[in-house]
């Protein structure tokens, strides 16, 4: 009896492992359908991104800027900026793009990606971030910042733009 139970258990583990792969494959197929767009990507400047991003959600665009930060842990996100350092756009990887290399920092890059709305990072409705005391109130400035929709770019591909030192 015990032998059979153990054999079934091992078999179940193996099936579960394979099942996970199939589920992911299925999910990816759906994702690919969403990602495919017929329109040619529109090039936006970083300055107009904030203003126009809402109309481009789910669509492909091109951005160009300087990489000012790459997440050092997993390289799953980076930020680019242009003339105005206050404008920083978050670029994230997809399942199919490899992690960003931290050595990209300081490079000028051209990114093709899909605009997506960043899910609210603030905890509201009675929920509190770790370490935050119960009853904490967000101040007005805080609220304005976080309650404005934020957008990022899901990177499909990118290329480093080579500049001569004189061009910079």
């Amino acid at each position, binding site marked *: 009896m015990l032998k059979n139970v153990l054999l079934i258990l091992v078999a179940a583990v193996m099936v579960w492992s394979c099942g996970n792969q199939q589920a992911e494959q299925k999910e990816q197929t759906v994702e690919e359908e969403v990602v495919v767009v017929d329109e040619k990507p529109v090039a936006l400047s970083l300055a107009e991104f904030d203003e126009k991003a809402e109309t481009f959600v789910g669509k492909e665009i091109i951005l160009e800027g300087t990489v000012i930060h790459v997440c050092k842990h997993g390289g799953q996100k980076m930020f680019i900026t242009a003339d105005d*350092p206050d404008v920083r756009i978050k670029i994230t990887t997809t399942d*199919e793009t490899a992690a960003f290399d931290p050595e990209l920092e300081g490079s000028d890059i051209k990114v093709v990606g899909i605009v997506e709305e960043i899910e609210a990072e603030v905890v509201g409705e009675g929920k509190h971030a770790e370490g935050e005391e119960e009853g904490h109130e967000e101040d007005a400035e805080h609220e304005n910042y976080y309650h404005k929709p934020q957008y990022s770019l899901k990177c499909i591909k990118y290329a480093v733009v080579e500049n001569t030192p004189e061009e*910079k």
Partner: protein
Amino acid sequence: MAKLKWRKWFRVIHRDFGYLFFGVTLVYAISGIAINHLNDWNPNYVITASDIQTNIDHQSEKDDILAMLEENGERKNYKNHYFPSENGLKIFLKNGVVYVNLNSGKGLIEKSKRRPMFREMNYLHYNPIKYWTWFSDLYAGALIALAITGLFLVRGKKGITGRGAWLTVLGILIPLIYLFIYFY
């Protein structure tokens, strides 16, 4: 019907999975230790920092920045620069970065050098791409199989009916005790 020799199959599974996943086990184990201690070190890069005093201020332009880098032997490494804040300047170098306080002129040169092996292993540990996720799921399944089959490799008083049982229970209790103390 021939009797199924389950113990033999467990040994075969344990042995072959052990061989097959030896490499990736080392990758996850070594990078796991490295990442566990992020507060103590940078597992991907060896960072060296040195303080500098510069003449850079709010009026400085690119030529001044390049001249300052020349003085500090970093002119050839210049990549780019920007002003992240009203009083701050960040200069990107090949393999490094320079921070300058525009009010005081004080700066910090941080040079980074890749840690061979660790960087690659940490990269894999962070699940960089979906194909690796597939493989690591498979590996996770194999670890479960290794754990289960491992329980039944040895018979007798050192096996799962003797010493093995005590050690197994201890191994389960350690995370449970931790959870009761720190989680619940």
